């Protein structure tokens, strides 16, 4: 099978940002994204799905290193200061690399 390595960018942040992030991610060149509802705790305290507006989402984006960097920088510049947000990167082997 033809495989290739890509970056897996994971963002955990406030549910209120979902529609906004969805646009940003596409605009910055990623081919897609996967979103899961989440809850959790961090520097901004407990964020619980108990009440939608205060819950989290967990967004995954598979893309090449350049796109990943672009997205990270954009998020850092626009959301870091004011929103609950955690971002981390890892390497993954994707099938159908042409997709990403």
């Amino acid at each position, binding site marked *: 099978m033809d495989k290739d390595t890509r970056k897996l960018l994971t963002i955990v942040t406030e549910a209120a940002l979902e529609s*906004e992030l969805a646009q940003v991610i596409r605009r910055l060149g990623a081919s897609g994204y996967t979103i899961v509802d989440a809850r959790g705790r961090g520097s901004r305290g407990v964020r619980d799905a*108990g009440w939608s507006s205060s819950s989290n989402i967990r967004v995954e984006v598979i893309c090449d290193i350049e796109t990943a960097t672009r997205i990270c920088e954009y998020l850092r510049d626009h959301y870091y*200061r004011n929103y609950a947000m955690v971002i981390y990167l890892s390497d993954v082997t994707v099938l159908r690399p042409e997709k990403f």
Partner: protein
Amino acid sequence: MDPVILFFLLGFIAGISRSELRLPPAIYELLSILLLLSIGLKGGIELSRQPLGDVLPQSLGVLIMGFLLPLPVFAALRFVGRLDRANAGSIAGHYGSVSVGTYAVGVAYLASKGVTYEAHLALFLVLLEMPAIVVGILLARGIGRRSDFGRLAHEIFLGKSIVLLLGGLMIGWIAGAEGIAPLEPLFFDAFKGVLALFLLEMGLIAAGQARALRERGPLIIATGLLAPVPLACCGALLGWWFGLSVGGTTLLALLAGSCSYIAAPAAMRIAIPEANPALSLTASLGVTFPFNIFVGIPLYFALATWLYGG
């Protein structure tokens, strides 16, 4: 005491004592959707019974009040409370706007007292939701950064609560009483039961907010306790000036004195990111909401009765 308030107490106590009791978010959604539609439908049916013309001038007056209410709150927070501009604007927007839950409890209160009120209060509820939020944002940010005002407008005018309230109003207005009749079992007969469950969840949420009060400090408590009554008085006076019934005056006072926790937080989070959402939410849900349903409603009712020399 009205049993629906006991449900709020139950939720609050359960929350404070960290019980595992929790309503699934989907259920909370359903309950608020039902409340919003019921209120809208009821208002629409009543409106369909009278010429809209009479309502327009009053509506205009209510809109204007909506734009003005945030100003005193902002001034107080900014210059007395020494709060930064972003948070002062955000909180002012919350208090200028309205709380559907509080309104629903008020309606139940009047019903249990057998007091009637004007049809178009539901319309006022819709009209009061948006203006204050816009003003609060302008107060926080100045007229600059117009760029995303389009998105903001979308956020405000297509938010869940507006769409359902306005939609309900329209449908009730078009279909009229007999048209809506078959919908009554779900939307009207079950109303108070739905409200009870809703308040149970509100109690749980309020408890969570109340626990956070310590960290938030005295300013939030003060705001939550002191803001409602003066604002409610503006509402009461306007209602009195309009010559509304005692019930209508009570509800208009309640609307003015209530604090948004659905529309405003969502809009503010996007429009004033630098404002700390915890502050406004704690004041609104942890202090003002309980204050209004326990102390406020009877107080505003007494005020309205007194205004009419009752």
